Every structure is written in structure tokens, then in C-alpha cells.
């Protein structure tokens, strides 16, 4: 078994990178990629902590349902991205600002 801290450091790095990607990229699909990265960082934490609780599977179950919800989020998010692109002819989130005007 590997030290739990090493899982957690990697998860912290993945979460921070996902946050940076969500903030700095000016493309909706890149923003969705960043969200996927953050969800996977949380999954890694769940799997790592499940090792500490011997005889319990709750961490695996949580990780499984997080993966399912991530799939739903990606499918609906990309459908919204495609529809917004067809309406506004742009995939930059800052340019979709009709409510601002």
C-alpha cells in the first residue's frame, strides 16, 4: 500500500490545475475539461480515503456515483455549448453577455 499523502498531494494539484483552467481559458469546452479535472481530483480523494477504512466500500460507491454525475454533466453541458454556439456564433463565454447590455 502506498502512503495516502501521495494520493492527496496529486489530488490537490489536479484540483488547483482544474480551477486555473476554468478561470483562464476563453473557451467553453476547455472550461468543461477543467470541471472534469476537478471532479476527478475529488474521486481520487474518495478512493484514497477508502483504503483507510478496512471492510467498507462507501468510498468506492461515492466515486462511482460521482463518475455517473460527471457523465450527465458533460453530456448536458456540451449540448448547451453546441446550442449557444449555433445561436451566438461564438464559443467564448465572455461574449455571451446579452443580459449585461
Amino acid at each position, binding site marked *: 500500500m502506498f502512503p495516502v499523502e501521495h494520493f492527496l498531494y496529486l489530488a490537490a494539484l489536479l484540483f488547483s490545475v482544474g480551477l486555473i483552467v476554468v478561470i483562464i481559458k476563453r473557451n467553453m469546452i476547455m472550461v468543461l475539461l*477543467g470541471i472534469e479535472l476537478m471532479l476527478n481530483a475529488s474521486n481520487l480523494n474518495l478512493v484514497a480515503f477508502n483504503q483507510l477504512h478496512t471492510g467498507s466500500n462507501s468510498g468506492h460507491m461515492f466515486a462511482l456515483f460521482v463518475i455517473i454525475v460527471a457523465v*450527465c454533466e*458533460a453530456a448536458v453541458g456540451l449540448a448547451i455549448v453546441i446550442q449557444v454556439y449555433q445561436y451566438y456564433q461564438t464559443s467564448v463565454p465572455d461574449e455571451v453577455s446579452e443580459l449585461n447590455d
Partner: protein
Amino acid sequence: MSIPSFMFYFFEAVAALSAIALIFIRNVFYGALLLIICLLALAGIYVLAFAEFIAVTQILVYAGGILVVIIFGIMLTTKISGKPLVVEHAYVFSGALTGISFFILFIYFLSKESFLVNPSAVVQANFNSINPVGIALMSDFVLPFEVAGVLLLVALVGAAVIASSTKSKKI
């Protein structure tokens, strides 16, 4: 260094490097491929963390589902000109500040904690984890399992309805 620990740190390095490269890459298609590399390395880490079922699910769902959906999304949101889609960066300073300060906070609080366990007991208890996962899915977690099935169906129908281009009903 034994083979499992070499594989563990190799997968960790691959995941970390491909995630960091995702910040600097400007082509969306290469970004999607880097994300898939990162997620497959995470699947390898899950295998080494005694979560084989999660690893297989990760490979099936991300390499089989999400990658195809994301690449379709990229192809449907680019103007057909042959040029690759280049992403601009904005708010670079505030984004880097937020991410790096989050990372430093995580590292600070993690380094103050210690998770002491008996490794041999963990290896003994987690030796075969697919069988208990299957039993738990069908007994203790059967209600969330069925709700997840309904959620997938609703998301599928919703995505199909949203993405179908009905010109008469503009949003």
C-alpha cells in the same frame, strides 16, 4: 524500488504533467487528448489503490464516452476552415493566483496531518474488492443505483432535446 511503487509514481507523474500541460496548451483538441491521458493515468492509480471496479469504470466512461462527446463538441463548435481552434487566455494573473494559493493551502494543511495506518492490514482487507462492490451495489446502495440509472436516462433525453436544432423555438 519495486515494480508496483515504480508504476504508482510513474502514473502520478504522468497525471500531474499532463494536467499541468493542460494549462499551457492552446489547441482544444490537444487539450482533450491531454485530459484523457490524465484520466487514464488516474485509472492506473485506482488499480494500485485497490479500486479495480472504479478503474474499469473510469476507462469505459472517460475513454469511451466523454472523449467521443468532447471531440464531437469540438468539431461542432468550430468554423469549417481547416485551421485549428486556438484558445485565448484571459484573467491569467487572477487565475494563477487563485490556483496557486489553493494549492499552497492544500499542501500546508495536508503536511500538518498524518494518516497512520497498518499497511499489511489494509492490503489484507482490500485484497479482493470487486466482489464486495458488486454485492454493495445490489444491496445497500440499490436505491442510489436505480436513481443513477434514471438520472442517466433524463440527462440523455435532455441533451438530445437541447442539442436538436429546432429553428422555430429560439432560446
